[in-house]
């Protein structure tokens, strides 16, 4: 690329290889193939970085995305439900002067669509006066009859609107579609911005890009304002379909960023015509629901009965005016493709203005003239269903065979009102960084408009998605495309803004973190149990491998043999491998299997899979640091490929121990001492108590004499140092028992766990429902007393027949109250009742 006359650019090296395509609008290059002047600061900055630096920054950006757990669930992807988000190093550049026009068009569109919704869910004049064909509404499954006639505060049904925009070859931005019920992507746009502005600080500064935070603040305040006037401390929740949804990451991310509670349908309940969130100790009223659930799933009573993702009675609560749902229930109606053809006319009629952002030219086949046109030009058009139809993707006429075209035409003639023809927008392209060079990629911009009181605010930027390759006519994350940040490049420095809380925030001191939904308490409890279970297994394996490779690896010492039996008994080692010799190759073979991605179920793999699943569903409750540790834990477990060497394994196991310790550290030092922490810690304590009892019991059963494994037991229970310091002697059973079971100062001892559990239980909310828990707490205290009184010198005496009857009996007496407690907590605090629908 030569320096251009228009920009006087000095950008040469990297962009020289960029091939501007003929007949396609390029966002960065104008006529004459010169860099557009406003893009110059961006590309000269990128160019200055050079190929290697860009590659390294891209790697950093990728790591940031992975560490932050930015994922996008692709339905039906065998590689697992969450796929890392992909972000291009080159943002989509838009000139500030042009953005002003787009912004005006977006605001107009939000006003227009909101007005249309107000009419269709109210007087329905547009249908009555023949402006909109009745079939687009009355045959439309997106028209929710139970929501007709419901008033909404301020007449606002669209609190957040997303508009997919593409630039056609004539340089005009065209609307591809509107997202009006639960628009996704705003959170990804924010995360893209955070990552990219950190990766390219120089370019970001030079381009004078406006920040996104003011938009989110307006959105947040706009939602809080929807609360009924008497609500002094409005509670806004984000309603998610759950971790399996494609954009679940974003639900948790936005909830945390905006300071709202993330809930699933089961966390909410409608009583007395109001909506409440079910927390551990009471029901707390909800004022505003920012829902990420599609319209028809929101209420199994009055809407789609098959779905239990929603909240029974929600429509009635909205009707009574006790809660506001954003966007309003039924607002998906304006996503109807058939309505697009009528928007220019509707805009004139309803707003008295010309439509600023034109849709792709559309023909609704219900009009005879339009049908004729579409029949004649079907091969050049995109044919869509006129009504929202999940199972019918758009048909690109140009891709059809003659036979398929004939079939399409007869379908059009048979039920013309069900189809629209749309001119295909030849998408513009923008440079993307492939890792080596810039390449043109098709781009679609998703822009956002939010309501704040009585005005509309546009996000200065948006989520840009790029085509996977040149052939694909649909740009979609579901189809493997990538994403870009969107930079409005201005001449003036942007106004500084950040997400600060509004002025008078009252100090709220929550002693227990009372907004903890029962579901979250349940999940945290199990997270604690599984983390502890994983740690126990890792420690078992590490002790075994250390012992097996200590000196003479060829011979099976009594200690190694006993340890192997212990691991098999505890499920940490495959029984099939126990008969093999303990030669290095066979040991390495078994370990390789244990850690390989398609290895057998094991006491390590199962808890790690659970940790991953649970962490996902409570991720709005975990700090970013905690999340990073858990991601690292998963990575450290699965990273290894190929055959493992023993010293690799040790390093590997050490790393896992460190990860788990880091998690425990976060738990101890960085979590508020609310109910959330208590349930997490109770899970850990309960599991550790059970595991310790099992460990001792199994050791007595498999090791003869038991002294062969005592050193390992101390190692597994992380108590070797204490033992050495205290006794200066080879391990013997009575003092080991005392240290692992009875010592209330040893954080690994059974007695310590029982005391910790007793303390937690005393702090839980108590009411009639917790009687069962109280009962178990009493049993637990009794068990602790038994331990306290136990004479380990007596119990640990090795009789002639190796019979530890009294000791085993004591251990059995520990199990019962522990298991009973787990059940009692579930019954008293976690809601598990199933929802049934009767029609």
């Amino acid at each position, binding site marked *: 690329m030569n320096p251009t006359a228009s920009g006087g650019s000095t950008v040469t090296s990297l962009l020289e290889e960029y091939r501007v395509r003929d007949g396609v609008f390029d966002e960065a290059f104008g006529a004459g193939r010169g860099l557009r002047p406003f893009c110059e600061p961006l590309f000269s900055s990128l160019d200055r970085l050079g190929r290697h630096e860009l590659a390294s920054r891209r790697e950093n950006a990728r790591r940031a995305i992975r560490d932050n757990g930015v994922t996008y669930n692709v339905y039906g992807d065998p590689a697992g439900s969450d796929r890392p988000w992909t972000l291009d190093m080159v943002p989509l550049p838009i000139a500030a002067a042009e953005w002003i026009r787009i912004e005006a068009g977006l605001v107009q569109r939000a006003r227009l669509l909101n007005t249309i919704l107000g009419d269709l869910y109210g007087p*329905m004049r547009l249908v009555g006066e023949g402006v909109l064909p*009745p079939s687009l509404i009355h045959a439309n499954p997106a028209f929710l009859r139970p929501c007709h006639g419901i008033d909404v505060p301020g007449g606002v049904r669209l609190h957040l609107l997303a508009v997919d925009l593409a630039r056609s070859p004539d340089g005009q931005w065209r609307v591809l579609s509107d997202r009006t019920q639960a628009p996704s992507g705003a959170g990804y746009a924010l995360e893209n911005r955070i990552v990219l502005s950190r990766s390219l600080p120089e370019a970001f500064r030079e381009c004078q890009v406006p920040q996104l935070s003011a938009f989110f603040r307006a959105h947040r305040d706009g939602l809080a304002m929807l609360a009924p006037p008497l609500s002094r401390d409005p509670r806004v929740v984000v309603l998610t379909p759950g971790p399996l949804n494609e954009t679940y990451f974003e639900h948790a991310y936005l909830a945390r960023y905006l300071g709202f509670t993330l809930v699933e349908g089961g966390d909410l309940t409608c009583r007395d015509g109001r909506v409440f969130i079910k927390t551990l100790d009471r029901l707390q009223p909800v004022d505003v629901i920012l829902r990420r659930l599609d319209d028809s799933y929101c209420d199994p009573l009055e809407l789609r009965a098959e779905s239990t993702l929603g909240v029974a*009675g929600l429509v009635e609560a909205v009707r009574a005016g006790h809660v506001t749902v954003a966007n309003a229930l039924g607002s998906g109606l304006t996503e109807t493709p058939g309505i697009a053809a009528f928007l220019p006319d509707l805009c004139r009629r309803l707003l008295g203005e010309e439509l600023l952002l034109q849709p792709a030219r559309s023909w609704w086949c219900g009009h005879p003239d339009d049908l004729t046109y579409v029949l004649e030009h079907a091969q050049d058009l995109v044919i869509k269903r006129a009504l929202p139809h999940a199972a019918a993707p758009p048909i690109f006429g140009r891709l059809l065979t003659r036979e398929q075209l004939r079939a399409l035409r007869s379908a059009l003639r048979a039920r013309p009102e069900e189809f629209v023809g749309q001119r295909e927008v030849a998408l513009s392209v923008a440079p993307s960084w492939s890792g080596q060079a810039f390449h043109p990629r098709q781009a679609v911009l998703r822009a956002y408009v939010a309501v704040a009181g009585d005005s509309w605010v546009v996000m200065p930027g948006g989520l840009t998605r790029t085509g996977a390759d040149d052939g694909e006519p649909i740009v979609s994350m579901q189809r493997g495309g990538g994403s870009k940040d969107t930079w409005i490049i201005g001449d003036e420095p942007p106004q500084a803004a950040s997400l600060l809380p509004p002025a008078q925030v009252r100090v709220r001191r929550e002693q227990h973190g009372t907004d903890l939904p029962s579901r979250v308490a349940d999940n945290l409890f199990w997270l604690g149990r599984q983390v502890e279970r994983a740690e126990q297994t890792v420690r078992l394996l590490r002790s075994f491998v250390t012992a097996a490779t200590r000196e003479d690896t060829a011979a099976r010492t009594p200690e190694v043999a006993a340890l192997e039996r212990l691991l098999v008994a505890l499920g940490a080692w495959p029984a099939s491998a126990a008969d093999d010799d303990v030669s290095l190759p066979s040991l390495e073979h078994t370990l390789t299997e244990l850690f390989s991605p398609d290895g057998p179920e094991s006491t390590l793999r199962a808890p790690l899979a659970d940790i991953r699943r649970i962490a996902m569903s409570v991720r709005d409750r975990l700090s970013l640091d905690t999340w990073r540790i858990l991601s690292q834990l998963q990575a450290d477990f699965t990273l290894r490929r190929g055959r493992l060497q023993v010293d690799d394994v040790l390093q590997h196991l050490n790393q896992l121990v460190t990860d788990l310790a880091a998690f425990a550290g976060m738990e101890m030092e960085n979590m508020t001492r609310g109910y959330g922490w208590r349930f997490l810690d109770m899970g850990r304590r309960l599991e550790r108590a059970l595991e310790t009892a099992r460990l001792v019991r199994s050791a007595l059963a498999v090791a003869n004499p038991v002294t062969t494994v005592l050193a390992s037991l101390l190692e597994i229970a992380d108590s070797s140092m204490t033992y050495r310091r205290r006794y200066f002697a080879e391990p013997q059973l009575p003092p080991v028992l005392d240290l692992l079971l009875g010592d209330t100062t040893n954080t690994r001892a059974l007695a310590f766990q029982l005391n910790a559990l007793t303390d937690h239980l005393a702090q839980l909310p108590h009411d009639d429902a917790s009687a069962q828990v109280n009962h178990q707490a009493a049993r637990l205290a009794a068990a602790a007393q038994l331990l306290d009184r136990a004479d380990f010198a007596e119990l640990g005496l090795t009789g002639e027949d190796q019979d530890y009857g009294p000791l085993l009996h004591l251990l059995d007496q520990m199990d019962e109250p522990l298991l009973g407690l787990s059940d009692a907590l579930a019954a008293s605090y976690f809601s598990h009742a199933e*929802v049934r*629908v009767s*029609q």
Partner: protein
Amino acid sequence: MRYDVTHTTRYRYTDAVLLSHHVARLSPLTLPHQTCLSQEIEIDPAPAITRRHRDFYGNEMTFFIMEGAHHELRVTARSRVEVHRPAMPGPLADAPWESARDHEQLPLDVIEYAFDSPAIRPTEEVAHYARPSFTPGRPLLEAVLELVERIHADFRFDPQATTVATPLADVMRLRRGVCQDFSQLGIGCLRTMGLAARYVSGYIETLPPPGQPRLVGADASHAWLSVYCPGAGWIDLDPTNNVVPGEMHITLARGRDYGDVSPLRGVMLGGGEHQLSVAVDVLRLDA
């Protein structure tokens, strides 16, 4: 004719229901040929909250919430209704059926019933079944009466064969069903021919006057269909009994299909399995 209608619905649950939400459509409409003189709905145990509204179709709906554990729910609707014989269709009903196909000529509140609805998505089989009755130029009423007669003859009343959720395609295959299936089939047939048709839920007299046969569907809630005839308005037809409803049919609610007018629906939290029993008593009052 005056009637006292008692409609009792009883749910028995194996486990306690902790919370449930319900919508009942159990209040008879007041129409040109029918007056609802009095109406009450008794709910036992007492609900936490009750609200009444008109729904999108003009039916009265009662929303209520049951809070607190219960093993049984009984909803009793008592209504006193006066029914007159609907006006006979005028001569316009003799216009060719094709004249009713033009949606642009239909009043706005009728168009709603001209399209597929959640429970009535007619297949090609349904259209195939309907066609023989709609020969070119045939008077609308004549064609519809014949369709209803054919459904009555071809399909057997069998309460065991279907449930409230059985799709039309299965009814076509089984050739069996109850009033709900026959009505929805008839509606599907009419809609595939381009006509507007709606679903009517209601009751018929339990004990007929001496000398008249006891109609099928008594002792339970009943359903029939209604077809729109430009110029003449809605005309009701009962495919289960192959009759044009008169003074013995009491209209409860109207909608696109069963889903819009279900007499009592609910979402329960807990409850295990439930057992449902319904009893309807329609008593003619001496004039």
